[in-house]
């Protein structure tokens, strides 16, 4: 987190950018800088997406902890370094309960050392009785499982570390 603080000038950049967009009523801005990419859109259903960075989001802290994290708009996450150099995180697309296997007692979808492709199902996140199968969205080798079966997970929380091919 420390180096984020140092790099906080990027937040200001984003701020400026958003204000500039508002001022001149821009609908869309795309920026790419080094490894990261920003796409900002304004209007009816304004969203901030950080595709390149999404998989690099830091583990969303658990109860109470999030508070310690610095205030920052979504794109700021792009700054966050991967928890483990050379690995990519598979993050939860929603808030819910994490299940590592299809059924209680079954073997887990994946374990450390398994190779996964973009469409490989790595776990289930249950939200409102709906069991969402989560694909890896990246190909490589599972190097770490970050949560336990039955854990509650937040939106954007890292579930697995993958060493890409």
């Amino acid at each position, binding site marked *: 987190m420390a180096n984020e603080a140092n790099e906080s000038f990027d937040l200001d950049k984003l701020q400026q950018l*958003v204000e500039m967009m*508002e001022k001149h009523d821009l609908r869309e801005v795309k920026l790419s800088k080094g490894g990261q990419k920003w796409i900002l859109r304004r209007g009816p259903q304004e*969203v901030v997406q950080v595709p390149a960075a999404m998989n690099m989001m830091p583990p969303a802290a658990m*109860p109470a902890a*999030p*508070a310690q994290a610095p205030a920052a708009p*979504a794109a700021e996450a792009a700054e966050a370094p991967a928890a483990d150099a050379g690995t990519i995180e598979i993050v939860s697309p929603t808030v819910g*309960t994490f299940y590592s296997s299809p059924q209680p007692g079954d073997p887990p979808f994946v374990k450390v050392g398994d190779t996964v492709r973009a469409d490989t199902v790595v776990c289930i996140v249950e*939200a*409102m009785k709906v069991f969402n199968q989560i694909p890896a969205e990246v190909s490589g080798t599972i190097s770490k499982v970050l949560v336990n079966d039955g854990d509650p997970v937040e939106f954007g929380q890292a579930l697995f570390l993958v060493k890409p091919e």
Partner: protein
Amino acid sequence: MFQRILIANRGEIALRIIRACKELGIETVAVFSEADRGAHYLELADEAYCIGPASASESYLKIDRIISAAEIGNVQAIHPGYGFLAENAHFAEVCRDSQIEFIGPSHEAMATLGDKVAARKIAQEAKVPVVPGSQGLVTSEEEALKVAAEIGYPLLIKATAGGGGKGIRPAMNEITLRAELKAASAEAEKAFKNPGVYLERYIQKPRHVEVQILADQHGNAVHLWERDCTMQRKHQKLVEEAPAPSLPQSVREDICKAAVRLVQTANYSNAGTCEFLVDEDNQFYFIEVNARIQVEHPVTEMVTGTDLIKEQIRIAAGEKLRLTQRSIPCNGCAMEIRINAEDPENDFRGCPGAITKLRLPGGPGVRFDSHVYEGYRISPYYDSMIGKLIVHRESRAEAIACALRALDEMVVEGVKTTIPLAKRILEHSTFTEARGDTGFVERTW
């Protein structure tokens, strides 16, 4: 009573609800978007879950994510605050289907009162005056002229599909009515794909007066007196106060009783507000019910000595009202001044950015409700309100003096705010002498 509540909101009102829960010994689960990550008020909740990106449609408006946060948070109830999902009957229903109490009215009552025509019917049923107008749409010129003759001129031709001030044309007399009717209908067809129009009396120079009510699930309802919210700009309230100045005592009592009749007729429970227009002859006309807690609720809390959020929670938990109508006082005068990060020089556009310096007002008679602090970054995604200054003094004159000295004490740097406008309003003779109408601020500044 609940042991654990989820707060499906952000900012000032989320903090307000956390405060009430802490005083009641109830645990809180907060939810937040990535834009609000790290906000100080989240530290005050017992748990906090990220539910999505900055965009409200992907977080604070995302019903399934909020419900599943409630499930993993293991709460018994959800407080929606105001805005976002607060008046979404579907959300209320989903909550209850998931065995989670929604802290607000029944979704049936919410749905009914959310419908203009249905709400108007209920009001008439409850013998609450509504703005005179045509029963439903006017289809022919003859009908229009006949109705017009009954309700009298000047009147407004309103597109049934319109709203937010759009699709409205005034008609001062028969001639203009004839001329405007077709034009209005054609315009409506073009703008809203619906030619339907209806007629309504044009209330001139109205004041906005609303009545706070509380109703339990056992058929008991009381009013907590009224608030005057006449100081507004583009339908955005700037200064609210209680009691309503320049309203005869008999009218105050009538309008408050009318509000109670209305919510009882609608089988309404929990906290709510009945909004009225009051014309120059002190005739009042029902407009709508806000089926939620309102931004300006502290004004009523100060003069009645109640905590409306706590009462909402108690009612949702099934408790009977602790208040009887006779036990509810209206002491002194309270005012709320909304402080928004907006640029008055630039048509009040929002001013997102970091608050580089902040000094808050204090001392006797001053309450300040806000989630911001020095270093807080106002995100561009949500509303621009950064705080509410509430003052409570013996008299209206002292309340105004107290509000002005408190605004003098305030320092906000880094963003532009509406503080200068607030001072101009508070110092203007039209306000101090309570001669304003809802158009005053726009006409004057």
